[in-house]
Every structure is written in C-alpha cells, then in structure tokens.
C-alpha cells in the first residue's frame, strides 16, 4: 500500500483547524466527525481553502438504536482527487440541521429529499414540501421504524390465490410431529 501522504496531510489540516476527529479510511477516502454546528464551517473551509469544490452526495442514515440521525456530506476535490466525508450525528427527536444550499446550490435537492424521507428540518430551505411523495401523511418513510411491507399489505390490494403456500420447515416439523422451541425460532429460515 502506498503511503497516504496527501490524505494524511488533508486530515491534519482539517483537524488542526477545527479540533475534530477523523481518519484516513484508505487512499482517496478521508472522513471527519464533526459536531452539527461545525459542519457548515468545515464544508465552507474545505470548499474555499482546500479545493473541495464538488459536493458528490449527501445522505442520511437512521441509527434508530442510538436514537440518532447521521448526516454525511461527501465532497470531492478534482485536484487532489480525494473524497472527504464530513459526518455528523443529530438527535432523532425534532431533528434539525443547518441548511447548506448557500454553499452548494445543488444541496437544496438533497435537503428536500432528506426532509421528506427522514423528517429532518433545514431552516430556511426553499422549495416545496413535497419532493417525491404526494399527500403523504404517515411517518417519513425512510425512517427505520416505518414498516413498508406492512403498509403496502394494508394499503394495496393483495391478489388472492396464494393462501395455500406452505413453509418447508413447518411442513417437515408437522410431518415428524415435533415443534421448534420458541427460543430457537429466530434461527429458523427467514420468510
């Protein structure tokens, strides 16, 4: 493996400027973890000072067990040819995040989508409330606690005729007259 001098240098300049933690993942990949208040500062600094002019993508992950949303900003420097991931975690209750569409115009689209799919508010965000959905009154669908299958089964017509389907494992159990104990059932085949 080649020495990651460029990457390490980038990380150093970011960590010294902002007192944040980060790591070099591999060549061309550097990530930093920041507090949500610092994100726009880091992005602006990276764009203006370090040449990360391209916002490659922006996404959100719902860490429901931690009760946090993680926002990830992926930016790219065409000169250094490095991807920098700026990651931040925000509370899941009444989530709110700084709007960065003044830094990158295109961030507007991402933020509208995240607002719709995860319910994160971006104060000052221009654009209609609906992005891909229309008249959606359930919980934001990309949240982990939204069960799409259950919703689909309840909402949409299910064509009949498949009720006679059998589970192989259960058929075998029945035929051999045994029962799988309850604590073992979670290891049975998924269906």
């Amino acid at each position, binding site marked *: 493996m080649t020495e990651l001098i460029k990457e390490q240098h980038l990380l150093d300049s970011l960590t010294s400027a902002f007192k944040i933690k980060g790591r070099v993942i591999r060549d061309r990949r550097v990530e930093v973890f920041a507090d949500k208040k610092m994100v726009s500062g880091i992005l602006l600094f990276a764009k203006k000072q370090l040449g990360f*002019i391209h*916002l*490659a*993508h922006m996404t959100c992950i*719902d860490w429901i067990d931690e009760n946090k949303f993680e926002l990830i900003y992926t930016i790219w420097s065409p000169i250094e040819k490095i991807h920098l*991931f700026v990651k931040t975690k925000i509370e899941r209750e009444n989530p709110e995040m700084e709007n960065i569409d003044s830094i990158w*115009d*295109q961030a507007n689209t991402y933020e509208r989508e995240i607002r719709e799919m995860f319910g994160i508010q971006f104060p000052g965000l221009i654009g209609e409330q609906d992005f891909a959905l229309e008249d959606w009154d359930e919980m934001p669908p*990309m949240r982990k606690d939204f069960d799409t299958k259950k919703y689909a089964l309840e909402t949409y017509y299910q064509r009949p005729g498949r009720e006679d389907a059998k589970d192989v494992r259960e058929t075998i159990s029945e035929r051999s007259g045994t029962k799988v104990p309850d604590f073992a059932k979670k290891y049975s*085949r998924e269906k």
Partner: protein
Amino acid sequence: MIREKETTLYLGPQHPGITGNMMVKLKVQGDTVVKATTHVGYLHRAFEKLIEQRNWLNAFTLLCRFCVPEPDPMELTYARAVEELDNREVPERAQYIRVIVMELARLQSFMLWYAGQAGSAGLYTLGQWSVGDRNYILDLFEELTGGRIYHMYIWPGGVRRDVTDTWKDKVLKTMDYLEKRQDDYNQLMFDNTIFQKRAKGVGIVPKDKAIEWGVVGPPLRGVGIKSDVRIDEPYEVYDKLDFEVPTAEGGDIWARALVRKEEFRQSISIIRQAIEKMPKGDYYNKVPNPMKWVVPEGQAWAKTESVRGEIGFYVVSNGTNKPYRVHAKGAAYTHGVTVLEKILPGQNIADISFIMNSLGVCPPEIER
C-alpha cells in the same frame, strides 16, 4: 416589443420527451421560459427502502431498475461498494468482463441518446436507425446474461456467467458494424443544418458554475473540464486501458453532443482493447450462501462513470445479512433539478425536451 402576460405551463408528467415521467412547472412569457421548477416523484418506488428489506445479494436485482436506459453501472457501483465492505477481491477476468459490459451499456445508451436527441429536434429517421441497431447490442447482452434490458449480471464478487470466445467474436463484429454506422448517424445529425442551428448556443451551462451546480459527465466535459471517474479514480481495469476523455468548449447542446460523439468512438476502442487483453481465469469470487452472508460493519462509497456522469452508491452495513442503508446518487439527480432549473430561464419552450435529453435527465434516477 409587446409585454406578454406571464402564464403557468405544466410540461409533463405525461411524457416530457425523455426517458421517464417528470413534470417541469414553467412560468412563461410568450414562448420564453421565465422560471422553471422540477417536480419529480412520478416514478418513486422507494428503492432505498426496499433494499433494506432484501439481503445483500438479492438486493442487486432492484438496482438495475434505478435508471432504465443504462442499468449496468448501478449494478457495478453497488457491487464495488459491497466488495469494499466485505474485502472481497474480484478476479481480473471478471474486471475485464465488467468493463466490456459497462462500455456496451454505454454504447446502447448513446444510441438511445442519438434517437432522443435527434427525435426531440424532429429528426425521426435517426431514431429508427440507432434504436434499431441498438438491438444488436441487446442481442449481445441477451447471449451473455440472459436478459435484454435488465441484465442482473454484475454482482458482488464478479459476474454471473463467463464469456465465451464466440461471444467475443460477435462483440468485435458488432463493434465493426457500429463504427461504420456511427458515420451514418453523424451524417444525419451533426452535418444537418437543422440540428446545428438548434443545438448551437442553446442550453448553455456556464463554466464557472458547472461544478457548483453539480454538473458531471458529458455536460461537464462539454464546458471544457476534463473530468471522468474512469481517470479520476480508476476502477476495475480502466487504468490498464488506453482511451481519451474528450472535451469540448461552449457548454451548449452542441458541445455536449460532440463529447458524446467522440465518447462513442472511445467506447468501441475500449471494448476492443478489453477483449484483446482479457486474461483467462475465474470470473466470480463466490460469496457465501446469500441468505446467511453477513457483510462486516462499515460504510463505503463507490462511484462509477455512467453515460450521464458519475453515479455513486453509499452503502452502510451494520453487520447483518441485510444492507442497513443504501443511498444512490445518479447524475440526473443534479442535472434534472438544480441544473435544469438554472438553465431553462430564457430558453424556448420547444427546446426544453431538447435540453433535457442533452443533459441526460433520467427521472427514475432522481427519485428512485
């Protein structure tokens, strides 16, 4: 000059002249656009949610449906992200096969583009030719993968089936044929006054704003910026192949068309090289039983150059047999919303689908 009243006009969702449904809400004065707002969601299938319900392997069947005209880059990008998480090596032969498939996909997508770009300028003959000839590439795909449009061929670890020598010969023959045919296409398109007059100076992406707005792929190369994932961050075996990344100046539809015209040539050349250099060996590094395949915890970002520009997949694993989160960002995501909204004001209504075709706007890729 008569001041005309501002009118609201809805372009779409019923077929705006591109590959998919979307709606552009226009404020127009006469036939000049004053303001454009993109509305998407007519093709929203909740892919990212559905992938979370599938396991690592059978999620890949969904991916090719992300963007219909060019399904393969999605499969490849996902596969690469998963391979990075799983530390899975891909045999070299598989990498060559992947490159060939990618370039064939690019070619067939270019041929659709020829039809769409010319069709939206009223040149219907070209559509009959290029889409008709596109079937020869689809035949190649069918023979290799078993599917015409949706190949579901590139998956984590390699590819699903090996290529045969007869298939390689057929590819080479098809390439010879297409190379000749492209001259015919170009004669109809680039030598045509109608096309020239409509394309030059229309739909200009300003050079200084391009990266800011998130322009990628041929539209970015159309403003003179040499940017291509295949050279910026070489994946598979692109660094072992010799090819040019064409650029053009101007940022208008004409410049983008010139870029694509040259890329068509480059793709043919890449395929020829890849077929020649393809080594013998394995084509697949078998993953474990897909129902029990657990990918180690982590996050990975992979990107690929599709015909519309870079496509990126952000894949998150929490160490179970299902992806925790998969986020896909296609080129159309920015082209179809931010860029389109920015460059439409001042344009003619009649040019809108012309511009959208040239930007490579693909609605299913925007809303997924």
